[in-house]
């Protein structure tokens, strides 16, 4: 496949067929550049917007078909990963709720996932410091449990991406919450080995309960995941033995969903 991100074309018809994607960044967000590239490749018209502009009402969520909270260390992860980002976003909480209710897709990657949980757009648990006690970067495998129905995970069976986080250990509120998430098909992806089997560290790289790597909401239009699909969207990004560009699927799914 081509690694060359197609440049947004400017003819009007073309623009209309490309849903507008909002990459919402905060101070310390650092995966916005590659997330913008991935969304562009997936067919979206992408705008990267600073949190403060959204809060100052210089930009309206209703103008977008898709919102992504990218990875990074918003506000330095101070007071907990994603905590201050989520706290600031509470000011536009109603608009976000409306966005989600309208069944438009919301993606939270890594730090974005942490913020979505803190915001309550995803529920059932939290993300705690890794069991290893430190940040860790490595390529991992995930598999989609059979009962997942979110269109954001369409045509994914097993998929490889890198992780890069210090606080990615999913901790369920309690055993019942975890079981509920699993039964309802809201555990979007679980860590596994190259063959799809469960395992301890480093297969489950952070010690997550139920090997949870990704969660969706009940409606299936909000997806949060710790691994980074935007780091595996083009040739050469995946190491030996993994499918190059596999992460792009999540973005093309999101764009398709945004088109309605």
């Amino acid at each position, binding site marked *: 496949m081509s690694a060359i991100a197609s440049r947004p074309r400017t003819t009007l018809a073309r623009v209309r067929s490309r849903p507008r994607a909002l990459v919402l960044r905060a*101070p*310390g967000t650092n*995966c916005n550049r590659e997330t913008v590239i991935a969304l562009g490749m997936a067919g979206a018209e992408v705008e990267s917007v600073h949190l403060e502009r959204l809060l100052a009402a210089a930009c309206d969520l209703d103008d977008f078909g898709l919102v992504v909270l990218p990875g990074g260390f918003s506000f330095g992860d101070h007071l907990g990963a994603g905590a201050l980002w989520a706290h600031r976003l509470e000011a536009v909480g109603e608009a976000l709720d409306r966005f989600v209710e309208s069944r438009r897709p919301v993606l939270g990657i890594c730090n974005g996932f942490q913020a979505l949980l803190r915001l309550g757009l995803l529920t059932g648990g939290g993300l*705690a410091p890794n069991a*290893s006690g430190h940040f860790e*970067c490595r390529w991992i495998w995930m598999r989609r449990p059979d009962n997942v129905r979110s269109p954001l995970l369409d045509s994914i069976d097993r998929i490889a991406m890198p992780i890069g986080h210090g606080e990615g250990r999913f901790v369920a509120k309690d055993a019942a919450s975890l079981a509920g998430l699993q039964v309802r098909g809201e555990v979007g992806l679980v860590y596994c080995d190259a063959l799809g089997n469960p395992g301890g560290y480093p297969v489950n790289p952070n010690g997550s309960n139920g090997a949870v790597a990704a969660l969706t909401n009940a409606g299936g239009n909000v997806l949060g995941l710790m691994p980074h699909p935007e780091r595996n969207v*083009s040739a050469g990004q995946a*190491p030996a033995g993994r499918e190059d560009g596999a992460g792009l699927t999540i973005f093309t799914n999101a764009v398709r969903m945004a088109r309605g």
Partner: protein
Amino acid sequence: MSADAVWALEVVPHDQDVDPHARALRQILCDLGTHPAGVAHGRLYLVAGPQSPRLHAAVRDLCVDPVIAKPGSVAPPSADDWLIEILPHPGVTDAEGDSLGQALARDGFPGLRARAGHRYHLHGILPPSVVASAARRLAHAVVESVAWRPVSCPVDLDWWRQAFMPDASPDPTVETIPLRGLDATALQDLGARKLLSLPLQDLEAVRDHFAAQDRDPTDVELETIAQTWSEHCAHRTFKATIRHREPGAGELEIEGLLKTTIMAATAEVNRPWVLSAFRDNAGVIAFDRDHEISFKVETHNHPSALEPFGGANTGVGGVVRDVLGVSAEPIANTDVLCFGPLDTPAETLPPGTLPPERVYTGVVAGIADYGNKMGIPTVNGATLFDEGYVANPLVFCGTVGLAPRGRHPTQPQTGDLIVVAGGRAGRDGIHGATFSSDVLGVSHAELGSVVQIGDPIVEKRLADALPRGRDLGLYNAITDCGAGGLSSAVGEMASDLGADVELTLVPLKYDGLRPWEIWLSESQERMVLAVPLESWPALQEIFAGEGVEATAIGRFTGDGRLRVRYEGAVVADLDCEFLHDGMPPRQLESVWASRRVESSPGLPAGIDLGELLERAIRDANVASKEPIVRQYDHEVQGRTVGKPFVGPADIGPADAAVLRPVARSWRGIAVGCGVNPWYGEIDPYAMALLAVDEALRNVVAVGADPARTAVLDNFCWGNPNLPDRLGGLVRAAQGCHDAAVALRLPFISGKDSLFNEYRLADGSSRPIPGTLLISAIGVVPDTRRISSMFLKRPGNAVYLVGLTGHDLGGSLVQRLLGIQESRAPVMRLASARRVFGAIHRAQRKGLIQACHDLSEGGLAVAAAEMAIAGGHGLEIDVGAVPVAEPELADSTRLFAESPTRFLVEVTPADAPALERLLGRTPHARIGRVLDSPHLQVRSEGEVVIDANIETLRSRWQSPLTEVAR
């Protein structure tokens, strides 16, 4: 002391088993021989100001995620329990506390201050002395205070209050320093008292300069001169006139070591794609028609010795700013670390020295924290262990930048505003430049103010804003604010034009700094820009949009004077010419006495080669660095196409990293390094040749074009005022020149860190092993054709390219066996370039399946690494190794560290084409990839090594993994 009420909230994670702080305390108590019934850790947040239940609810809401942690104390306190609390010293950067204060202000609680610390609970009966020892081990004394008390004892509120900077008023005090009439002794006395780190000759020049004007300097003036003339800022040693003697080889007068060796090589090599060398904050090469790549490597050794986390953290921050200072966006970081052996017994540590394990842990965490948070992938590096680094660890930090070509402005104009952007100034880091220009002594460990703590998010905001200012052409010059603070940054920028600065405009973290302190503060995350008046509003808007504080503090005047004011009154008025060119040229003496013995004893006959291989791969210098490197994000930005770890199990140590900087192009860059201080113990000249060769080997092994590769030098050396230390430095610089010219490699940037010595209590001084790091950056024509070092397929042929000689001097195995050698490995300068060219041509033709350079541990270690990484066995015939000298023992063929050698895997079908291509380049087919998991080495048909690669893998992986536990 602030009279504010202070309230504290403790936030205790539910899962104490995996809390790293609780784990660290358990380990410390275990080391102290006690095992309390329970240990718990929580974050401690202090809020000072008017208190109310509403405020406390808001703090709880902000700080507690109930799924992960709970507010308040852990266990029901028992009377026997102890509490340990750790808080940052007042004035020390506490980004998390600042964030809490800012969040509260937004939530309607203005005017509060917050600090973040830690609280530990120790449950069970413990003697107070054990608690005290544990407390002292937990705190980093340079930046943190610690207190402990029985749970039953109420907190002393003054202890909490002291974490806040006491209220202070602005302090306009400017002292005039009477220099006129001071004699030599009095001058030296004064220099020592004021920590100026200037030699007598310089102090006399300053005295005479002011005497000619009938006045004495102010403290602002004297400090400015001391910073500007410091070794750190002015590189006096590398510019000095050196009388160099080598007994038996005569005498040589060197008019500037840098100019006559390293810069001379760049001129001789004369590569048109070198866009900027030794002129700016970083070296710059052309990448393609539209883009340029910059690279800079810095050291942060002294600060890391005192406070490993903060020192390494701000080391990364500093070198990233160098790349921002050439108007580039940082796209990769590198780090090379030198530590004492991790098992160094505590009782052998020199006084005031932190244990190497603590330095190691702190430095790695500090690098990870800054690079990861800024979103810069850390892609390449090395970690070395030697007793010589126990008191003086070395921390080299590098940053690669990407920028559109030719968009970096470098000429401030008369009338331009002087703008400082980023963090605020505090007392942190005052005297950093002069401090690092002096020998580390026991008393320096007390100087907390020289250590800074970083706030990577502030720098990230700057990095987000600056490229837009560049693209819109809104500034005429930019530089980073590093050692020497504004005095250096503004001073350098204004060296031609002159400037007029008002210090009361400089944003401060807190009041109470004297004018000279504001001027010298080395508070982190600041850039200085020259901004035309008409561009200022647009640039301000960009900065404001990213939440960057930016302030105009003065103008470039064009009158050639550096004028500094405080509330309008002139507190410094210096002639720029004197400031930058008035330092007396330094005259230095150097001597190099080579060791005489030329014959080599080789390795003992009959030594068990398999056992030697096992020892070699589990030496900390060779062993897998995965426990370190995995803590760094090497994937962020999505550009890393050549990973630090390769192979099916992601464990193979790549020779170099490959990045694809521009998403629309297949073109790449490879980043690698070469460093080996042990050769330098024999001959620094040879060390330099070999380091340049190793750096080039590493990048060529992955696919860089040797004709499009540039190098950087970083010298870490002892006291250059001592002729024997300087003699080695001269030899090393000469080696850099000769290697660069022979390999046609331009040096584009460099930095030296001298005075890496530790003064012992008895007054004697111990230098580090003279250490030269060469970093290489090379263009990879097509990233679809990069090579990796892991074995790919059984049945493939393995070739050794390059000659092996009697090159055991300074080698890993000789160190392991305690053998002294007097000849360092010999670099064949005349033929080396042909080898690199041939490897690169073979890569471009797609003939190479795997490629690995031979370095420490020679052929045996390289072969073992390829096998471990690929999970395939390998059979080697040592008899087939191409040799440079006759009668080379098997042990020498296997473990010699001859330079310019590669192991290359090739399919049987491509083997003839490879052989044709290699032609007269020394090479031989020495083995093949096996189906079975064995590394088998044969000599005249007999098996001399038969090692299971799984066993080798676990030996190679375990040393640093065990430390991590």
